[in-house]
């Protein structure tokens, strides 16, 4: 007799915890052959507001953590994901209806993407920032600083690689994020949330809301405590090595002047 498996309840990820939707709503997720996979929490306006609150409380500490610390935390995510590689592959394969080989390539690229961005934590300021030789006795320099709380929609097709590619550049630069993963393929996102929860990522830095972006994003867009919105490009090639652009998008540049003289 085969063993009856124990199935997981999928919930939201807000402020480091896994609550059900405050609305009590769920929606059904199926695989590529229309077979039932799971009931997902259907995030509401209230869940979104809770997530903004969690993100906002996380920003002060995360944005002032040392770049070295942020880099190590991101690298830790890669380490923890690597340990769950098989689980991710089977979930991506189920969700996207692709072969294990193809799913494996997506998962590997997603893990490697964390490593790539981990390395940027203590470098992007050296590449984007600079001193400015102003014509006067002043020391003048420009540094990138995080914009704050970012609300993002992850790509709807690339369930894990797209999600990681959207979240990593936002948080490596010191921002906190509320992200809505693929509506129809959200299961790998919840597994990612479990990795984040066990990877030294401070609570609230990443918040994941499953559900309908069309319903929730307008509330986030109107929310006065959200500093930036990211609607990920639907047809981007997520396998390609990224450029600086996604990090640049979520930083402000601050210029400081200071007189120089005896």
């Amino acid at each position, binding site marked *: 007799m085969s063993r009856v498996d124990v199935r997981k309840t999928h919930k939201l990820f807000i402020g480091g915890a896994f609550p059900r939707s405050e609305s009590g709503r769920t929606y059904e997720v199926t695989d590529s052959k229309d077979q039932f996979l799971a009931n997902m929490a259907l995030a509401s306006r209230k869940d979104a507001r809770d997530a903004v609150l969690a993100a906002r409380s996380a920003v002060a500490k995360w944005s002032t953590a040392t770049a070295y610390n942020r*880099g*190590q935390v991101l690298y830790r995510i890669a380490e923890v994901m690597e340990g769950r590689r098989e689980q991710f592959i089977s979930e991506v394969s189920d969700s996207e209806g692709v072969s294990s080989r193809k799913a494996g390539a997506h998962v590997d690229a997603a893990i490697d993407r964390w490593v*790539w961005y981990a390395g940027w934590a*203590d*470098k992007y300021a*050296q*590449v984007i920032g600079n001193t400015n030789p102003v014509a006067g006795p002043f020391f003048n320099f420009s540094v990138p600083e995080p914009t704050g709380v970012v609300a993002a929609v992850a790509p709807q097709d690339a369930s894990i690689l797209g999600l990681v590619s959207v979240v990593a550049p936002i948080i490596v630069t010191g921002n906190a994020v509320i992200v809505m993963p693929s509506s129809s393929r959200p299961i790998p996102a919840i597994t990612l949330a479990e990795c984040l929860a066990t990877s030294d990522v401070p609570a609230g830095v990443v918040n994941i809301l499953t559900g309908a972006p069309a319903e929730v994003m307008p509330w986030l867009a109107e929310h006065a405590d959200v500093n930036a919105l990211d609607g990920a490009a639907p047809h981007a090639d997520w396998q390609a090595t990224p450029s600086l652009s996604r990090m640049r998008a979520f930083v402000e540049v601050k210029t400081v002047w200071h*007189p120089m*003289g005896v």
Partner: protein
Amino acid sequence: MPFDYAPAPESRSIVDIESNYGLFIGGSFSEPTSGEFFKTINPATEEVLSEVAEAGQADVDAAVAAARRAYDKTWSKMSGKDRAKYIFRIARLIQERSRELAVLETLDNGKPIRESRDVDLPLVAAHFFYHAGWADKLEFAGYGPDPKSLGVAAQVIPWNFPLLMLAWKVAPALACGNTVVLKPAETTPLTALAFADICQQAGLPPGVVNIITGAGETGRMLVEHPDVDKVAFTGSTEVGKAIQRAVAGTKKKLTLELGGKAANIVFDDAPIDQAIEGIVNGIYFNQGHVCCAGSRLLLQESVADEALASLKRRLTTLRLGDPLDKNTDIGAINSSMQLSKIEELTASGEAEGAERWSPTCPIPDKGFWFPPTVFTNVTQAHRIAREEIFGPVLSVLTFRTPEEAVAKANNTPFGLSAGIWTEKGSRILWMANQMRAGIVWANTFNRFDPTSPFGGFKESGFGREGGVQGLGAYLNVEDPS
């Protein structure tokens, strides 16, 4: 009754030292063809810790050949992304084994465990972590769209920060795609040999890192080897000049990180207590075995008496003794040779008319020790104001105006570092601008970070280690084709 500290020794049981070590060539340890071994001792007790191979010409040839093979067959063909993963592994292994490495460093070097544990090892891990991230991002570093590695790097490092100097050399070399033959200092080879074990644990392809032990002669054979593309040396200006002469006229790229005679300049508006801590850290950290040590203290006249009194009071609280004791501030001098050099120079200080002062502090019977020492009434002509002592000896001079401070600070053939203590921000920046030195610390001293380039002006060397600029030392920046 004064309260005293109870002994708080760190256990050395975490460390396993073999009775002898061979050479790490091509991914495994082998006996030296020379058949020669030399002893490495604990400078705090003179106990023999182990016997280490003395690499001769045939061993140097074998190590360079292993590095060349690894460069041609593996490392230069590997993607930056994969190189990054190996270097990240090394960083993590160092973090995991950091206590063990800290104890080993303290045993072999004599530095206080508090420093090896809280300064050296965290910086070592950080250095690998930082450079791991560059391995797959070199096209963003400003050296062109596809910067190329140089080849085989010959690296010779000093005994003052054995593992940290290894990290400063090996991490950028590997990140930029070079392979390495590294020679640690003869008095402190053990952590480099432990690093060889870490390379094995990381599964680093054989020959990418080769560690050969030996004295100056081994180092000379290594830097003069015709199949070496890059030479990197940290150590004395005298040896640095000899290396520069040896390399002149060859295709080899060279970077040198040499001596220093840094001025630590205290203005009358400086926060004195904070400055005293910085002065003490600047010259007594690591027994003053620091090339960027703040060995010349320049005090503005109006605060000189007050600052000197505070400094002397602070020095009476420093604890000299067992480096493995967690309360120890001043450890052992690394070798009897270095101790003689410090004794010779301090004797010259007295002979030339400077006034010598040390707090009363008991000196252990065995091992090499030198008490923290301050010289006042020092003139710029004194040897102790001109020559690098590389020991816990501070020469105090005074100045009246900022211009005079600048003139005195820059009055040296060295140019590694400088310190400025003042509450006035504009003066910090003006002074920093005037200093002919590679690193300027303001209201702090002896800060190090892998993101921050380190290296000197003038006879303190050329090339930088750390930061974006440090990558240039291991990339073919002149010929991008």
